[in-house]
């Protein structure tokens, strides 16, 4: 059955104006109350590097950094992005095309197969680096030592990968901290 004429649906909706830093650029947009950050990033800003794996907070493919911390963008209301500083996988690369050390390390260690989990993994590893660096300055916080291999595994628990068995991803992360130590 084919529809003869079509109109598009126009329901009255309250829109919220939000503005935030996206990959170091100030952006402003209008959104619905229930829009999640993942859809905003992918559909409105066309940043397709952040991946939708489940929309349930279970797989971590959609991980982005909000004020440097890793968050599942599929369960994060875009409204709450207002005023925040958000980094996606696209924001890790310098404008001249230089990759971030996290990305270099993942490549070098052969940590990428199908790659669908990779953006989320890279963001989580970057977040661990942030946490480690910040912990040097925040009094009362626990970690100031280099994360151990087991701590890296624990940190990446929210990022599922079906291809690699995680070993090379963990190797890639470990190496980054080994470098920092020097």
């Amino acid at each position, binding site marked *: *059955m*084919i*529809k003869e004429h*079509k*109109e*598009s*649906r126009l329901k009255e909706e309250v829109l919220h104006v939000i503005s935030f830093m996206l990959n170091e650029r100030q952006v402003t947009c209008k959104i619905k109350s229930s829009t999640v950050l993942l859809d905003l990033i992918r559909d409105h800003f066309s*940043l*397709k*590097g*952040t*991946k*939708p*794996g*489940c*929309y*349930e907070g*279970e*797989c971590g*493919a959609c991980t982005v950094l909000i004020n440097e911390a890793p968050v599942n963008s599929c369960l994060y209301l875009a409204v709450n992005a207002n005023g925040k500083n958000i980094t*996606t*996988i*696209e924001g*890790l*690369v310098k404008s001249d095309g230089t*990759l971030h050390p996290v*990305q270099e390390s*993942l*490549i*070098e260690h*052969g*940590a*990428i*197969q*199908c*790659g*669908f*989990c*990779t*953006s989320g993994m*890279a963001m989580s590893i970057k977040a661990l680096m942030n946490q480690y660096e910040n912990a040097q300055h925040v009094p009362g916080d626990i970690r100031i030592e280099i994360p151990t291999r*087991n701590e*890296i*595994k*624990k940190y*990446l*628990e*929210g*990022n*599922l*990968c*079906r*291809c*690699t*068995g*995680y*070993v*090379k*991803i*963990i190797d890639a992360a470990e190496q980054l901290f080994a470098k920092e130590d020097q």
Partner: protein
Amino acid sequence: MKKEYKVIGKPIPKQDANIRVTGKAIYGHDILLPGMLYGAILRTEHPSAIIESIDVSEAIQLPGVHCVITADDVDVNNIGYKRDHPILKKGEANCTRDEIAAVAADTKEIAQQALRLIKVNYRIRKGVYDAFEALDESAPQINKFISGKFENKNIAEKFHYEHGNLEEEKKKSKHIVSRRFTLPRMTHACMATSNITASFNNIDKKLLLYSSTQVPFLYQRDMAHALKMNPSDIRVIQPVIGGGFGSKLDMHPFEPICALLSIKTGRPVQIIYSREEEFIASPIRQPMVIDLTAGVDKDGNFTFREINIIKDNGAYTSWGATTPFVIMQAFSSLYKVKACRFDAKAVYTNNIFAGSFRGYGNPQATFALERVIDLLAGELGMDKADIRLLNANEKGEVTGQGLHYDTCGHKECLETVIEHSGYRTRSLQNNDKRYKRGIGIASMLHVGGGAKIYRSDGCGTTLKIDPYGYCTIITGSNEIGQGSETVLAMMASEELGIELSKIKVINTDTDVKPWDVGVHASRTSFVAGNSLLGAIRILKEKLNKKAAEFLKTSHFDFDYSDNMIIPVNTKEGIALDKVVREMHFSAPNELAIASFFYEPSSKFQDKDFKGNVSGTYAFAAQAIEVEVDTYTGNVKVLDIYVAQDVGKVLNPLLLGGQIEGGILQGVGYALTEELLMKEGRILNPNFHNYKMLTASDIPDIHFYPVETLDKEGPYGAKGVGEAPLIPTAAAIANAICNALDLDVLDLPIIPEKILTALAEKKGTK
């Protein structure tokens, strides 16, 4: 003597890793075509029901909806390996995946809303959810499209195989062990959900599909059959694929449905599964019940194996029904065994239908076989490692089924893991009251050079070098994340002396690339590799001739390195790009292009399933140590020692990734993963309750490649992709039995099963 290579054998990262790690790779989810609509599928509410009526009138009225289709609106053929699967269901629903109607709308939300407006009247009927019940005379016929070729109306496919004199071998047996094993539904759970974008051009009547199939040419043919089109009017382009593992071997109904929506609307249409839909409506590993009886003589030699398998086919038949090809190989030919009788039936039920999954039946077979070997060793009082070494396969062996082991690393793999795991020297300190340790061994045999299950198991390659010295490999094979592209580029680099950054691999477009049967049976590096090497040989003949002419020499022995062609034993050569320009632009003006089609030497098996079905065979062994918490039943896998006969390591980095990834899937199969079903419905269609392992669950994996340099394989290599997960569940089960003195017969071995078994042993349950 080992040959030194410049590129082959080096740990080179995947060539497109930089694209993937920066988020620039374009997956099906990322495609956005002008004017594109969003498709969605209404599935049945009941796994078994008569569909009395479907009313789409309200849905079609919804603003933003362009088209709604049901079985009545389309003129199509059935799909599936047995053509027993209607794309849209008419009159009855037979499993929870069944597609009843589909819509195309301006947005995803409108499409979903439209689905909710479709009214279907069902008359619920009692379904058959157990394969044994389905075999009962009183059971209804579940699939109406099957020809009735077999003795029972619900048998979809059946296999019988035998070799040797079973009765005689039974008599010679000192011990005989019989067990029934039950294997669960496991699903691929690729990180990217299934997707397709179809774009029908109603001016020239050509259909363009962005599809993540792993067998584009078979797919093109199947799609054409389904839609009653000419295959060549269908162009299949593969976007970057977010995981395959066998799930994309069959064409599934959503794919022709998407094409139909595009044909009806004249607009591009995209369908992307939600995660829940992925769990409900994508294929699974074949669930089955295996009855295995096996014997051993007084010295520990295996005498016979008798196997009876009932596989739950689900409501429709996919390629998965052919897994007994592989299963029977494990039983007939893994370890020497004098006699074997094998029967397998795939039985229709109202459950979700099974598909193909990495390992293709072999993890199930190996689990049963390797468990029984432990039991036989126990009966004999023989060491579990010794009995395996005694019966291990050997180079030069031709098995009862007719497989030729021209190279064979079986024994070496076993010896390697036995040694490195410290199996013989370790003492498992099991004094602890709560935590008990155990170690288990298992091995496997799998095709290592493709498998001839289609008329051809071949692959075509066209190779070209341009006037700037860049090389383009147009290969029939494709990349689903496993890194085959990189391996091909490495081969070209090795042979032509061109650096990797100047090599491009084109493999995503059926309008461009030559024929290939597709990614399956761990065949890509082997078959596509040989195909490429064939093309290189031809191209080099042309280049050599031109180079000789240019250098005014008469001998044709050249080294290709650093973008130069250099006569052997001299220093002065000529730049490759220069030779190509010479070829192109001076008489007789020839292109630097070569094409080659490689067909492996393997044979189509005869009607008794005998014959050398693969170009070569891969072997592997694993020894796994576990620690079981007897308070909770949780199993911690401590160390996995893996040795695999890979022929030759082409790229240790990519190989390691295949091994580790495969093993973790195997651990999941052993311990945590199961799609739970009740009365035909899936109870856990989400990552929360379908338990894939996380980074914090992984054991230490110790990998020892065994190189046997197969003369058929490129540089001696064999297929590697499927092997790593095949023996894992078996070895883990053996380790758990070793730790707790249990007799594990089912997977997955979840904590509750362990506590139950312990309680039953103690008599407290």
